[in-house]
């Protein structure tokens, strides 16, 4: 937490108010507290101010002010992130983009839209839906998360197996750089000249600046969709079915796995029609041309049956399909019904390693005396073990963190990654050396230096701190949260 003197705080507040107006600046402790966490409650950090700009010019002016005053700043969308990425970990200014929610332009002929960063992901698909279009990246939090936040994290979602993640759908960005200058990276047209700065900006977790306008691709809704639910009595068989589907040369739009702990929580929440006694279920969606759809569905059914599915059924109508997806997308939230807290891991592994790694995950969690629920993008090999725990029990949180680290280590060992879509943020900084060498990290740090030489823009994220022996460059300093140890939940 920052240590501004009262008089400096007053004068900064006045300067902020001069930019965004009196009603668009928060500085009272109880109001700031609401902004101290994101979707991951393991960490909390209090800002000195939260400001609510409504235009690029205001964002630029805020950033220039912060830059002049040496005040750290970080952008925040809906705060649904799962890695602590938008926390003001060194105090300073939170730039909340929740008042920049407009769709500025939709160009149906060129299949693109220009939006503001605070726009809720799903609201874009709602807006263009009546004309037969949609925005493909669909994180499970898409009903609340913002497209700006998706840019920061390069968010994925269930349908990325076929359609790719956020970066595959972003053409250009208007960005406020960490010194306040406004530049365009990329454009509405393809192959803009020079380095692919759009590509490197997406997924930079808010450390390269703040996107204020975003050009995204829109896709046409597919002619046909088929959603299949395959039910298994053994989780291993479900894992094998995943490889079997891929081996048949099928590329489903989505291929999701959901285990028994999760099924029961979801059924408690919404009664979505998953069998409560199943060890695991696969939710498989095919989309595209109507021609050949039956044959593909038959291929999926056959692959699942051969792998030992107990039951395979196809959603009979759109309502049933929506209900199955509602269950899948609400899974994380549903854990609140079976446990007072959970920590979601986000490791990625080669698909073929699924049976082995799932077994290891269960062993690790059991060894720490904890429970785990699995709901994840099996087709991508993107695991989400959700370790369930009670933060009020002494020592339990530390065991969760330890188990999480061990799981990510296994993912790294089989050639995977420590994050598929949630980002590194505060949570996984110290695990970066599991998969990156000092030279890799130094290169990343140099790129950061190019965008953010003073390090004021979202400081203290991504790069490892004490545990690593990595020297990551001149901007390095120990993280305050790390010095405090793990903050208690909430």
């Amino acid at each position, binding site marked *: 937490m920052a240590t501004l003197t009262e008089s400096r705080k007053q004068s900064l507040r006045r300067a902020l108010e001069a930019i965004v107006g009196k009603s668009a600046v928060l500085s009272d402790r109880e109001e700031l507290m609401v902004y101290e966490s994101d979707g991951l409650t393991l960490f909390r950090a209090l800002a000195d101010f939260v400001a609510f700009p409504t235009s690029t010019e205001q964002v630029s002016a805020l950033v220039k002010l912060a830059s002049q005053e040496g005040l750290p700043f970080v952008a925040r969308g809906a705060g649904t992130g799962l890695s602590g990425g938008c926390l003001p970990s060194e105090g300073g200014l939170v730039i909340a983009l929740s008042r920049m929610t407009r769709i500025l332009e939709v160009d149906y002929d060129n299949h693109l839209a220009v939006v503001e960063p605070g726009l809720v992901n799903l609201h874009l698909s709602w807006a263009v839906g009546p004309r037969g279009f949609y925005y493909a990246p669909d994180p499970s939090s898409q009903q609340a998360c913002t497209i700006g936040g998706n840019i920061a994290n390069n968010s994925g979602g269930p349908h990325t197996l076929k359609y790719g993640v956020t970066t595959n759908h972003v053409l250009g960005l208007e960005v406020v750089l960490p010194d306040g200058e406004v530049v365009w990276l990329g454009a509405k047209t393809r192959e803009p000249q020079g380095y692919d700065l759009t590509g490197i900006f997406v997924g930079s977790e808010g450390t390269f600046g703040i996107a204020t306008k975003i050009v995204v691709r829109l896709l046409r809704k597919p002619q046909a969709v088929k959603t299949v639910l395959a039910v298994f009595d053994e989780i291993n068989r479900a894992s094998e079915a995943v490889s079997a589907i891929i081996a048949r040369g099928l590329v489903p739009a989505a291929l999701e796995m959901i285990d028994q702990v999760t099924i029961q929580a979801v059924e408690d929440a919404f009664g979505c029609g998953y069998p409560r006694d199943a060890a695991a279920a696969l939710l498989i969606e095919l989309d595209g041309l109507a021609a050949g759809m039956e044959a593909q569905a038959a291929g999926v059914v056959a692959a699942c049956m051969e792998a030992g599915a107990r039951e395979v059924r196809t959603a009979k109508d759109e309502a049933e399909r929506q209900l199955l997806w509602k269950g899948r997308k609400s899974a994380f939230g549903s854990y609140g019904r079976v446990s007072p807290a959970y920590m979601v891991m986000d490791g990625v592994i080669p698909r073929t390693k699924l049976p082995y790694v799932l077994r290891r995950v269960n062993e690790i969690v059991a060894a720490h005396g904890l429970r785990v629920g699995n709901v994840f993008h099996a087709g991508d*090999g993107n695991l989400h073990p959700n370790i369930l725990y009670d933060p009020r029990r002494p020592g339990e949180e530390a065991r969760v963190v330890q188990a999480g680290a061990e799981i990510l280590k296994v993912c790294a060992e089989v050639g995977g990654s420590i994050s598929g879509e949630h980002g590194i943020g505060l949570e996984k900084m110290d695990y970066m050396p599991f998969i990156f060498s000092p030279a890799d990290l130094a290169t990343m740090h140099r790129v950061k230096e190019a965008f953010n030489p003073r390090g004021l823009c979202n400081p203290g994220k991504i790069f490892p701190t004490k545990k690593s022996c990595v020297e990551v460059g001149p901007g390095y300093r120990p993280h305050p949260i790390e010095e405090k140890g793990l903050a208690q939940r909430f």
Partner: protein
Amino acid sequence: MQSALLDQVRGIVGSEYVLTGVALSPYVLEGRTPGAAVFPGSVEEVGALLALASEEGIAVTPWGGGTKIAVGAPPKRLELVLGLRRLNRLLEHEPGDLTATAQGGITLDALESQLASRGQWLSLDPPFGEQATLGGILATNASGPRRHLYGTARDLLIGVMVVAADGSLVKGGGKVVKNVAGYDLPKLYIGSFGTLGVIVEATLKLRPLPDDDRLVVTSFERLKDCGQAVRLVLGSDLIPSAVDLLDGEALRGLGLADGGSAGGALLLGFDGMREQVEWQCEEAKRLLAGAVAQRVLEGGQRDSAWRLVREVGRRAFPDPAAQLRLAVLPTQVTEVIEQAGAVAQRSGLRAAFAAHAAVGIVTAVLAGGRDSAQPVIAALREWRELVRAAGGHAVLERAPLAVKEQVAVWDPPGPALRIMERIKTQLDPKGILNPGRFVGGI
């Protein structure tokens, strides 16, 4: 190049892999001859060479198959050509993971044939696949017609191993299809024309080989009708893998015309399950009923037609003078082609155009055969203006030195250049990697 230095280079790779003197003639670039060309046989050798170059301040020009070596401003310095063709192995291919890792110097065709033996392919189809290397394709962001559905290098590359300017080995991304750990470094190396590092290994997403693959060529009386046809296709349920457009001149130059008078043609690629491909060919026929002619090509005919289209820059005219790559909004494609064609006509030049119509990428070729470069220069300048006015941009992909001296290769990238320069300084502080060839003199 000093002989002591050459000895050190020879010491690293062995003297049989170092070319000097007249043997360098294939590596003459924009009229300049390098001091040496060296062909390392391992990643470690690449590292040692770059460490040496960095220490000695020698300019290094990475060189794959050389198919895109003409793209770029004349080099500030041309000293050591770093040939990568010996790094030509497929390292890993696990069909169940739909990924493969290969070395940067493998040619696209060699890679594809090995992948095909296990039922998969890398969905990139740039020109000259028999020569173009994986590293070169990535470094130049080369693409082909099927980018329409399958995307470009940035959509397929999931991990990259690069030898940095100082000779250190740097990895970006990984081997799994989804990965947001750290910055997305692979994006930075794609299309960086070797100015940030030398790509020695790449991991890519693959796709299953389609059961069936056809090319539907539909000719129209006027180019405008082609544009209308593109709009119809994009508004339909069809899912073509390629949506290319050729103007009349390109159609005739490539020998793909049905009769003599067509003003242009739309080339639709359909691949996938037989049932899907058949339905799509029928649907395309129904949708484009107003066409002059329509043919469905399969097998060898299909392959050679696509090859011609990809290589339009070299094949539209026996003696092409210059090639400009334009990027505009898809809806502007036919209009820009018409205007650019009119410009050429006024200058007394012949021009041919091919476009990946639905993504707005146009290759514009000027015929040569004249003594003076002046009309070519004038036409290129006017084209540039025209694209800029349409909100797009252009790269002069090929032109004689005399033309390049008068017409900029790259458009200025705007205020973002500042960041690009800083990235270059951070990653190549001594400026040894391909100096001067890239955007803004980088």
